[in-house]
C-alpha cells in the first residue's frame, strides 16, 4: 500500500518535471499531472490503516467504566455506525445540542466510557488523544462511504446552526481580512495549483465536506474534518478554533446541508 503511494509520488514528480520544462506552452500540463497523481493515489489509501485502528478503538473496552463505544448513538440509534456519518451534524435530544461526529464521539466517550473529554479537546492534533479521535472518525466515516449525504436542517437548533454557519462562512476578520469565502466563495479558482471547492454550491460543498476525514500524502497524516477546519482558520490568520466548538459545527452544518444529496467519499485521500 505504502509502496503504491511512493510510486504515485514518483510518477507525480516525473509529470511535474515534464510540466515545468514545457512551462508556458502547456500551462495545463501541471494540472493534468496533479489529476493523474490523484487518480494514482486512489489505488491505495493509507486511510484504511486508520479505519482499522478506529474500529479497534470503537470495539475495545476502555475508560473508567471499561466500556466500548459499541452502544454509542450517532443519530441512528445505539450501535448503528453504518450510514451515520452521512447524516451528521444533527440535533441530539440527550445533549440538546447540534453535534458533528467528533463532538458526538466525545459525548459517547464521556457517558459510556467515563472518560474526561478535556485532554481530547485540548491536546494537539498530533498528540495521542487526538490520534484516537482521528482514527475513530476515519472508521465511522468509512462506514458511510458511498452513501448519499442526507443533512436537511429541520429542528430549530439545526436551522439556527445552519444560519450561524453561513454567517461564519462570510465573516471577515484578522490582519488579512480573510473569511472562508475569500477562498471558497467563487467557482473555479485555485490557490497555487490547489483547486478550491466552492462551498455555497452543492458540488463544491460535497467536494469539501464529502472527502474529509482524509489522508494527506504530503504530510503523511490522517486529518479529521475538525483538523481541516482548524488549519483553514490558521491560514485565515484567525485565532484558534476550540476543538468541536460551535463555530466549527456551524460551518460543518453549512457544508453538509449544502452538500446534501451528493455522495460521501470518506475517508478521502489528498495530495
Amino acid at each position, binding site marked *: 500500500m505504502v509502496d503504491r503511494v511512493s510510486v504515485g509520488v514518483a510518477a507525480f514528480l516525473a509529470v511535474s518535471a515534464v510540466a515545468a520544462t514545457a*512551462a*508556458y506552452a502547456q500551462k495545463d500540463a501541471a494540472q493534468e499531472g496533479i489529476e493523474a497523481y490523484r487518480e494514482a493515489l486512489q489505488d491505495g489509501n493509507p486511510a484504511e490503516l486508520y479505519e482499522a485502528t478506529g474500529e479497534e478503538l470503537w470495539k475495545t473496552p476502555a475508560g473508567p467504566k471499561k466500556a466500548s463505544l459499541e452502544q454509542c448513538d450517532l443519530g441512528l440509534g445505539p450501535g448503528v455506525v453504518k450510514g451515520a456519518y452521512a447524516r451528521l451534524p444533527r440535533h441530539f435530544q440527550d445533549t440538546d445540542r447540534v453535534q458533528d461526529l467528533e463532538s458526538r464521539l466525545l459525548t459517547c466517550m464521556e457517558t459510556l466510557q467515563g472518560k474526561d473529554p478535556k485532554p481530547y479537546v485540548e491536546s494537539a492534533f498530533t498528540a495521542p488523544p487526538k490520534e484516537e479521535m482521528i482514527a475513530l472518525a476515519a472508521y465511522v466515516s468509512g462506514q458511510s462511504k458511498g452513501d448519499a449525504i442526507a443533512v436537511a436542517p429541520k429542528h430549530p437548533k439545526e436551522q*439556527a446552526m445552519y444560519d450561524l454557519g*453561513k*454567517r461564519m462562512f462570510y465573516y*471577515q476578520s484578522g490582519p488579512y*481580512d480573510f473569511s472562508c469565502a475569500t477562498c471558497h466563495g467563487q467557482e473555479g479558482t485555485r490557490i497555487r495549483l490547489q483547486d478550491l471547492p466552492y462551498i455555497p454550491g452543492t458540488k463544491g460543498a460535497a467536494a469539501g465536506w464529502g472527502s474529509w476525514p482524509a489522508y494527506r500524502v504530503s504530510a503523511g497524516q490522517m486529518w479529521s474534518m475538525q483538523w481541516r477546519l482548524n488549519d483553514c482558520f490558521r491560514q485565515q490568520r484567525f485565532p*484558534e478554533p*476550540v476543538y468541536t466548538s460551535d463555530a466549527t459545527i456551524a460551518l460543518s452544518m453549512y457544508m453538509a446541508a449544502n452538500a446534501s444529496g451528493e455522495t460521501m467519499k470518506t475517508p478521502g485521500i489528498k495530495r
Partner: protein
Amino acid sequence: MKNAMTHLAAIAALLLAGPALAQGKAAPSWGPGADDAAFTRMLAASFKDKGIAKVDRLTQDETQAFCSDPEAAASPAAAEKRQRIEAANMATVKWPSDGKWLGDWKEGEKIAQSGRGNTWTDKPGEPNGGNCYNCHQISPAEISYGTIGPSLLQYGALRGGDEETMKAAWAKIYNAKSLNACSNMPRAGHMGILAEAQIKHLMALLFDPASPVNAKTGPAK
C-alpha cells in the same frame, strides 16, 4: 469565564455598533438563527488565543463588517457606502517616503513567492511574505500560481510607468480596499503585513523592464 464574558461583551458592542448592522434595512443574507446575539455568543465561545493569533483578531473594522455580508455589500443600495469605505481606505495609504516607486524586482520575486507570516505558527519579528503567487500569475517561469486574482503578466509593459499608473498600483498593494471596497486582496501596507521597502520591491517586479513579468519574447525558461 469572566474573561470570556468580557470578550463577549466587547464583540457584542462592536457588532451592535458596526456600521453594516446599524444601517438596519434589508435582512441579512443569513437566517434569523444567526442574529447578532447568537452569533456573538458563538464567536466568543469558539476561539482562543494561540501564538501571535489572539482573539482580538475577531474584532472587525468597518470595512470587514461591511464586506461580511457580500450580498448586501454588492447591492445598488450600498453604492454610496462602498464609495465611502473606499475613500476611507484610500486615506490610509502612505506614499513612498523618498518619492521613489521602485525597488529591486529580484527581492520582489522572493516576497511574492513567500506566504509566511501572521499565522499562529509564525513567530513574531520574522519578515512576512506577500502571498502574491497564491492568487496571481506573475513571472512566467512560475507555473504554480493561483487564480483568485487576475494575471499580472506583462503588468508594466501593458500599462507603462507614468505617475498615475504607479500611484494606482501602489495604492492597490498598500490598501486594496481603496479601489474596491470588498476586494479579496489583503491590505498589505495598511495592516502592517509588508513594509515600505517590500512594497517597492513588489512594484519593481511589476514595472521594472528587466523584470521577467515584462519579458518581451514569451516566458523565461
